[in-house]
């Protein structure tokens, strides 16, 4: 039987296991939308195509599958660019489908024609321009395969209108995709393994670096087994949070620019770093010339282009983290590293116990308290999706994640506006989980239109707006490095409670510390989505802080420990 390209598209998506897509219609994708009604597909109508891409991204990060976003040609497609770049930098598997003008019109500056494969070439893992109905099925299959295999990433499929409309016979091909130039399955040699094993067994002061690759590879258990057997403490990157339980005695906390002071100090004293699926981002290393000079480095990564990119490594091990560690684990000897663990404990001293619950209430509301209370009230079990800025760092410091894929955040691109749509995507991937968006007053306003999506879909995503009246993280840089000249960072905000109500949602403002727990509890109990606005201290800063390019252990510390937050 003959099928149109549009019908083939949906059937091919369903064959890839797709049940939900996030999209926005328009002329060039209309044939696909029309055909969609015949298929068991849940379509979530977004309010901006950027939102669709972040939703697909949040869906992928929360559920571990591939997220799908759909848009029309021209402005629909270009609105996707930020979301695609966000997914690219954080290795998130999404497939973006755009309509394109008819193939005969390509190159003619036709109405709503944009060369979106050209535009997205450097920010996709791969992309396709499909101009014949008979190529649709294969392109979809390849797109999913490329997006999720190896180092995951975004793939864009640009399908011309005539390719959606034309009919052809389809034969479904169930064989594995093989692409001659694409090798997601690189492996290191045995000799390299042996060097790694010897180094681990001989190390006196090792630290494991838990990166995002742990989630992407599903390596939580083997990482934990290795850490426990060899008694190696574990530090996390921002995107590695959740890859190792925060409550585990070997957990040290986050490393890097806003990481824990003792973690950064320990890194500078370590004799071995075991980098597990992390890419030594410049927010992680600080000044490279002085970075971890005493340590040998073992780097396990599925993407060999990451080796020696920023940090010179002694043993690079190419491959999927879980597979590599499963080969290494049996050869790792039980280690007694108590003196190293004690030394790190001593570095903590009395600084920065992130247990801030018992500090007296001074009448001020600090974001750290809000987030810490959110953690307590949700039993640390919610999926928290953050935006970008100070609140993002406080989330990383004060919400303790024991489970993988429970912190979803834009790390590499640092995309403001990510949280609200990504939280919606996460809720669709995990409908039974409690989902919170933790977002700044600035970033919230970048994609707040997606409140309408929440309302229309009647989903329960709670939103905690950390309202400090500033583009806080930028204000902090101005305070530290620009002489407190607050150029363009104070915000005049709308009434967020009324805004929520305008969308038919519930809004609530909290101004006192005593109001936080009741507020969060009320939001949880309410049937629909609740927008909780927390009016927090305006000029609070995130500590510690390694200024960009400074030595990792030369951190700016909280000037005089104030009682309300921990003495960072």
């Amino acid at each position, binding site marked *: 039987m003959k099928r149109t390209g549009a019908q083939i598209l949906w059937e091919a998506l369903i064959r890839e296991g797709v049940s939900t897509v996030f999209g926005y219609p328009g002329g060039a994708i209309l044939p696909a939308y029309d055909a969609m009604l015949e298929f068991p597909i849940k379509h979530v109508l977004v309010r901006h195509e950027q939102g669709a891409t972040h939703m697909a991204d949040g869906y992928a990060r929360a559920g571990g599958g591939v997220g799908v976003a759909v848009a029309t040609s021209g402005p629909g497609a270009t609105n996707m660019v930020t979301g695609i770049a966000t997914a690219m930098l954080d290795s998130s598997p999404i497939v973006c489908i755009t309509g394109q003008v008819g193939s005969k019109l390509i190159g003619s500056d036709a109405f709503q024609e944009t060369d979106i*494969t*050209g535009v997205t*070439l*450097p920010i996709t*893992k*791969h992309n396709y*321009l499909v101009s014949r109905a008979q190529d649709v099925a294969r392109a979809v299959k390849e797109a999913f395969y*490329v997006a999720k295999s190896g180092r995951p990433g975004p793939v864009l499929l640009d399908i011309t209108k005539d390719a959606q409309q034309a009919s052809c016979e389809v034969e479904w091909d169930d064989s594995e995709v093989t*692409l*001659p*130039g*694409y*090798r997601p*399955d*690189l*492996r*290191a*040699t045995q000799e390299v393994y042996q060097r790694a094993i010897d180094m681990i067994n001989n190390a006196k002061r090792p630290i494991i670096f838990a990166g995002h690759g742990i989630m992407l590879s599903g390596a939580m258990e083997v990482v934990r087994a290795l850490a426990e057997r060899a008694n190696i403490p574990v530090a996390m990157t921002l995107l590695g949070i959740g890859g190792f339980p925060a409550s585990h005695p070997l957990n040290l906390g986050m490393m890097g620019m806003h990481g824990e002071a003792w973690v950064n100090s320990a890194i500078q004293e370590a004799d071995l770093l075991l980098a597990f699926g992390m890419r030594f981002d*410049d927010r992680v290393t600080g*000044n*490279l*010339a002085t970075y971890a000079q005493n340590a040998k480095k073992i780097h396990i990564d599925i*993407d*060999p*282009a990451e*080796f*020696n*990119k*920023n*940090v*010179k*490594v002694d043993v*690079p091990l*190419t491959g999927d983290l879980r597979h590599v560690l499963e080969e290494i684990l049996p050869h790792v000897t039980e280690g007694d590293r108590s003196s190293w663990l004690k030394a790190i404990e001593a570095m903590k001293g009395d600084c920065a116990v992130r247990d801030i619950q018992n500090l007296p209430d001074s009448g001020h509301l600090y974001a750290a308290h809000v987030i810490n209370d959110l953690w307590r009230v949700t039993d640390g079990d919610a999926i928290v999706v953050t935006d970008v800025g100070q609140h993002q760092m406080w989330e990383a410091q004060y919400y303790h994640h024991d489970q993988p894929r429970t912190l979803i955040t834009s790390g590499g691109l*640092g995309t403001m506006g990510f949280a609200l749509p990504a939280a919606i995507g996460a809720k669709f991937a995990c409908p039974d989980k409690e989902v919170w968006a933790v977002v700044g007053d600035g970033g919230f306003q970048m994609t707040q239109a997606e409140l309408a999506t929440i309302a229309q879909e009647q989903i329960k995503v709670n939103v905690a707006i950390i309202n400090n009246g500033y583009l806080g*993280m*930028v204000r902090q*840089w101005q305070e530290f490095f620009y002489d407190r000249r607050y150029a363009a960072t104070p915000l005049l905000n709308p009434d967020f409670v009324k805004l929520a109500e305008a969308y038919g949602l519930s809004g609530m403002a909290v101004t006192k510390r005593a109001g936080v727990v009741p507020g969060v509890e009320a939001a949880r109990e309410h049937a629909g989505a609740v927008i909780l606005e927390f009016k927090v201290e305006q000029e609070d800063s995130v500590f510690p802080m390694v200024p*960009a*390019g400074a030595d990792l252990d030369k951190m700016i510390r909280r000037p005089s420990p104030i009682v309300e937050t921990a003495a960072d």
Partner: protein
Amino acid sequence: MRHTFAVHVEDTPGVLNRVASLFRRRAFNIESLTVGHTETAGVSRMTIVADTDDHGALRLEANLYKLVNVLRVDDITVRPSVQRDLAMIKVAATPETRTHVMQLVDVFRARVIDVAPDSVIIEATGPEDKIDGLVEVLRQYGVIEMVRTGCVAMARGPKIGGLGDGVERGTQVADEAPADDSNVSYSV
């Protein structure tokens, strides 16, 4: 330093764009890039000369392998290889100077492929420095136009290997990583 890469790619639309875009995105300078068919249908071969150090060359190779349409990358800088550039040079040549020009052409084993009343077109192939030398001596007569293909290169001896045997390739590792703050982004 200059590195010469032989890059086999699938002959699909946009592949040249993908490769060129990679160089730009990763901030590598292309000195020359040529592309053409190979002995295998559907496979094109590029010769790319880039100005980079050994560390950069390894990074480039690993990044080229990340392109789905790239089949095989060989840095042939370190291997014995032959490299050729082809140039066509239009030189002013009056009846008085023509013999001088012809003599130079002979010395450089180039050829005159077209003669007009007051100019000739010279075709020359050879390593780039030979062609540079020829151009240098022709300048005094007046070089009117010149076109060069850029370098094409091939390793000597047996073929380096099949297109599919690159599974462990792209994993070599440089021993130097940059140790300055050139890669720190100072953005919020």
